[in-house]
């Protein structure tokens, strides 16, 4: 059995030896993306599992181990991990937990620490926690985000964004039920196989592959695309995770809407760009700024590539670029507004509106600090500038009920059609 080794601060490390023996548990957020990333990790010799589980049990475990006033995503992520460790499915001495660490002034940076506190509370201090981050925050000898692995992750990110976008634009209109989801599975498997095959992947190949994916999705037989489009923005976890938002996408689809969910790529670029902005605002080394700029450009190239591919297909609508989004947001907030989703969230709302998606659900955990400002705080001004916009802010929380949330979303949806007849001129 692997020896437990600690670093100088007393943090339990994930060692080389553990890598062979341990199963790494990963909380779920974006099923398509995470599933590919997991399989990539497995290709590197890690035993990984992305978690599911009964929502009620996850919430209850979260409530038990995390301060109840902490934000809902922390509660869910930690609840999911803790209930998995305690489920009896895994050997408690041969399991490690993986959690992302973003850094920044939002309390979300504390998730990893709260997870360790929870483990301690449960008497599971032997379970190592791996931080997945781009900032070099915590390092582990047995888990290294090598350049090669990193690039593959980037591919998974791009492919994931593309597949989700195409699926969202196709699924509501598919004539043969289930065809879209089958296509999603087909491509996920195919892509992963290619990662595993070890064939060298280049940007050019990625672009060609994306073209193929688009072509395949375009072949799915659909009806006329005339449903009400509803955008979803918000705190990253509740925005994407069905566990976090009570299956919001499914609900909207059942209400007869097409959902528009901005991708993960913008968020990644946003986090890189923030470092560059910090140097501009508060000073710092030009080298740091340069490295960030290079990374940002690299990511943006892929984003642009994806947009160009999508634009070849008239049946699909491509998202805007990061810089377009930034440009829009700067009329509302400063570039320094970087905690949580920061100005990106406002930018996403504006981008959706400029794309004709006036109906937006702005999701956040109850009491989310950055969203007071960048979510709820900007709706008034957006409404003044774009009277057509129709935004509802929904809070998510272990105690908030679906019925309450759905009533509010329905109210927003009611505003999309017939209500207009009652409007009076200024």
């Amino acid at each position: 059995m692997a020896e437990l080794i600690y670093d100088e601060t007393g943090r339990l490390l994930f060692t080389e030896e553990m890598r062979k023996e341990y199963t790494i548990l990963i909380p779920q957020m974006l099923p398509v993306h995470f599933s590919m990333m997991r399989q990539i990790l497995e290709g590197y010799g890690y035993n990984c599992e992305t978690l599911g589980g009964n929502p009620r049990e996850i919430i209850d475990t979260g409530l038990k181990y995390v301060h109840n006033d902490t934000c809902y995503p922390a509660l869910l992520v930690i609840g999911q991990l803790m209930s998995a460790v305690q489920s009896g499915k895994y050997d408690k001495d041969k399991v490690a937990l993986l959690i992302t660490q973003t850094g920044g002034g939002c309390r979300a940076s504390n998730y990893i620490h709260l997870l360790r506190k929870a483990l301690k509370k449960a008497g599971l201090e032997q379970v190592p926690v791996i931080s997945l981050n781009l900032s070099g925050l915590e390092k582990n000898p047995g888990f290294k985000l090598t350049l090669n692995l990193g690039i593959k992750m980037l591919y998974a990110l791009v492919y994931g964004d593309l597949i989700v976008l195409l699926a969202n634009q196709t699924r509501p209109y598919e004539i043969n039920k289930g065809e879209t989801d089958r296509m999603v599975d087909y491509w996920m498997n195919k892509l992963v196989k290619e990662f595993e095959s070890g064939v060298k992947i280049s940007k050019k190949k990625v672009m060609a592959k994306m073209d193929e994916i688009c072509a395949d999705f375009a072949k799915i037989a659909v009806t006329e695309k005339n449903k009400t489009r509803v955008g979803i923005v918000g705190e990253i976890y509740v925005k994407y995770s069905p566990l976090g938002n009570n299956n919001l996408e499914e609900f909207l689809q059942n209400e007869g809407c097409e959902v528009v969910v901005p991708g993960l790529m913008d968020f990644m670029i946003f986090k890189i760009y923030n470092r560059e902005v910090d140097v501009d605002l508060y000073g710092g080394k030009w080298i740091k700024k340069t490295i960030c700029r290079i990374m940002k450009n690299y990511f943006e190239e892929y984003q642009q590539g994806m947009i160009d591919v999508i634009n070849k297909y008239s049946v699909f609508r491509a998202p805007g670029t990061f810089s377009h989004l930034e440009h829009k947001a700067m009329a509302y907030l400063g570039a320094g507004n970087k905690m949580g989703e920061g100005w990106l969230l406002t930018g996403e709302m504006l981008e959706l509106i400029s794309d004709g998606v006036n109906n937006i659900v702005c999701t956040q955990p109850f009491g989310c600090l950055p969203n007071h400002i960048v979510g709820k705080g900007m709706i008034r001004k957006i409404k003044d500038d774009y009277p057509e916009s129709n935004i509802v802010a929904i809070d998510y929380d272990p105690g908030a009920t679906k019925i309450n949330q759905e009533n509010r979303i329905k109210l927003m949806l009611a505003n999309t059609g017939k209500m207009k007849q009652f409007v009076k001129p200024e």
Partner: protein
Amino acid sequence: MKIRVGIDIGSTTVKVVVLDKNDNVLYQSYERHFAKVREKAAEQLKKAKRFLKGAPLTVAITGSAGLGVAKAADIPFVQEVYATAAAVNKYVPQADAVIELGGEDAKIIFFRGSLEERMNGSCAGGTGAFIDQMATLLNVDAAELDRLSMDHEKIYPIASRCGVFAKSDIQPILNQGGRKEDIAASIFQAVVDQTIAGLTQGRDLDGTIVFLGGPLFFLKGLRQRFIETLQLDEEHGIFPENAQVFAAIGAAVCSDQYKETTYDSLISSLENAVTASVVSDPMPPLFETEEEYRLFTERHEKATPAVVNIDTYTGKAWLGIDAGSTTTKIVLMAENGGILYSYYNSNKGNPVSVVKEQLGIIYDKCGDRITIAGCGTTGYGEELIKNAFRADHGLVETVAHLRAARYFQPEVDFIIDIGGQDMKCFKIRNGAVDSIMLNEACSSGCGSFIETFAKALGYDIATFAKLGIFDKTPVNLGSRCTVFMNSSVKQAQKDGASVEDISAGLSISVVKNAIYKVIRAANADDLGKHIVVQGGTFLNDAVLRSFEQEIGREVIRPTIAGLMGAYGAALYAQDADMEKTTLLTKEELKNFVHTARPVTCNLCTNHCSLTVNTFDNGRRFISGNRCSRPLGKDKSSLPNIYQYKLKRLQEMQGTGNGTGARGKMGLPFGLNIYENLPFWYRLFTELNFDVVISPVSDRKTYLLGQRTIPSDTVCYPAKLMHGHLQQLIDMGVENVFYPCMAYNFDEGKGDNNYNCPVVAYYPELLAANMPDVKKINFMNFYVGLHQPKEFEKKFAQHMMEIFGIHKRETVQAVRKAYTAYNAYKEEIRTKTREYIEYARANGKNIIVMAGRPYHIDPEINHGIDELISSFDLVVISEDGLSHIMDKEPRKVLNQWTYQTRMYQAARYICSQPDMQLVQLVSFGCGIDAITTDELRDILEAGGKLYTQLKIDDISNLGAVKIRIRSLIAAMQAKEEK
């Protein structure tokens, strides 16, 4: 056109309307459905049979709980807002906006310009259910509440955000003898404030407004508050004669686009529609068998004091009175601890009259055989009752409960008491209370909460509780606050949960709330080995059972669980062994008269709402005060750094060393300006600006900016900023400086030096939400004071661009500003040392009030510093101590400067025997969800007590007082050891 029927199914009521072909209302009804939705709807339709029978008709259902019924019965459904809008469009075409209050929803619709609808968020009272809850609290029904409100003399500020908050505001006013008339009107005002603040969210509410929904229809007093607050005349404030059924009318109006049906088929489709009944994830039952229940009750019946017959007993007796928040408990105890007489009942909103009556009965029963040798009082109304009846001892609750618990289990190491309104838990170490946990204002899942539900479902509490005992499938309702619980219950009902499931589920929720939210325990060992549970709520066997199940350990519940406070007070009186009691004699009691009069104290800017109680021969008792001045004594003159800092900062305005030639520069006096004012003041005066800070906050500051607050769950200090900025604008200050600051100063003690997101970016929110900001030059650009060189450069650039100030001049000023800021910090540290020396020289204990720099704002801390000071304690703050200890790694990411200071201060005081820490936490502070646990860990590891005070716009100090006094009692107990 045909006969049209509209059915509105809301959270608590069903409304049915029948319209004739000329849009006249032929029939209307409005009834509570007690969760029996379809039956109620069919019943009402049957009453309207004479209008419906025979003719073809159209029908539509609307309402928040209507969709399920509509689907099951295959009746067309119309979204409620659409229905309301359709009705308003037809009957009040000139309307610009609609305000509709329902059972649990509050809505606003704007018609003018761009259509906008808003609904109350998930954390919001201000609805019919809220009013019902408040009426229950006053022991009246809604109609009586309404009648009372018409005779009000004054309005108390009551937290309007959430029912639970309002409750904790109202309770102390009640217990201190406030008039019900005034409270009733204050409740309505709270609803009005909530509606305006929570729903308009920055949009102006003007033009013609239509008021709809049951509460606004039935409650004249509520209407009156809206009219006065919005200054409406008859033309602009419209209250339709059938406002309570307006959505149903709308549904009827909309129904004509759907297919025809007949009366018979309508009734049959409603009656035959079976809503699918699936309770998702039920929990294990409380008892598997009746035998199990029998053993359980037998075990608990053993913990009981002797019963002594009052009619035969001769000798001394001691009286204990626990004037709790909703109930009054009285115990008369014999020499051997046996109970001669006990009383447990609602205080009916007037504890004094209840005690008077009971005392009379007791005196009668005692006759000449029994002598009352002493009397102790405790609970919320302790002081009032003590003064009214001249009791011998007043005890803080924790002390009374510990005394009683020890009678049943001398080795007790953990007590949990769940009463009507509060939940108290304390650990006992070495015979003294070691740590106290009380429920926070936002998690009061207590006794009255189950009671309110029982009533809403048409049961009394005892029957309701019994229903859950043998239930097989308790429903999982989560463990949050009452408001959330309401909708959880609603959802469970919709899913087909039975009343039994809900009863058992509620009991389990109360317990989970206590264990995980209040105590924050992960397992039974976190509690203790010898646990005594008490409080009226534990008399409910379902609650007791689920508590034992949840912690997996047997506990002791005395049979007098509900009387423990009173029993403890009686035991305390016996321990004191006094020669003679001062209690009012039988004769004095006969002539006892009590009047209560509300007044506003004008001795300082706090303007406390006082209640002056007068008893028979002119004895007076004043309550509601923060300091001792209204009692005719001097204000405490002990050192109090909160007062010192506030005074120092207020001096920082004007032209300083400069000429003021560049005109006025306004700074809103809130959030991080409290920290950085010494810096900005020096900087701008050096640049020859005349610095103007907005006046120190009061309630009016909040109200002034209330309408422009977009997020009702943000912390109160942030909400106040709207008022501060508005004041500066109204004062005609053209330049206002309020920078965004993602980073704070780096004091070298943490992992990073952030501000919280709200402090960091609130200036941007103000700019986006306050229309008047456009009138001024509002400077909210980003600055980073932690990088002096860079800041100097950047700031000089800004000053150059905005005011054309030469860069060199700005750079000089910036350097002086840094010096001034550092000098101010040093000054606070020096003062702190002085205060500590003073305390030690004079034998006083020291309280470190740890919070944020802006917590010195008296509107934010509600005078808690003065309250603490009045208990003969010296008050210092965390920033005067945070530099002492070296940096040490923490278990959490220690990345916010203000929070780092608290950790530092906590670590320091662990080595100081005469210091204790009290943490002020603003409600809604996300960061403090992390710091509270960490601070508790630091303090408890260092052998210190941890006391947390949650503060919001609440201005009543009842609960705070109990905590402070408990802390003092615990400190004394420690000292005695």
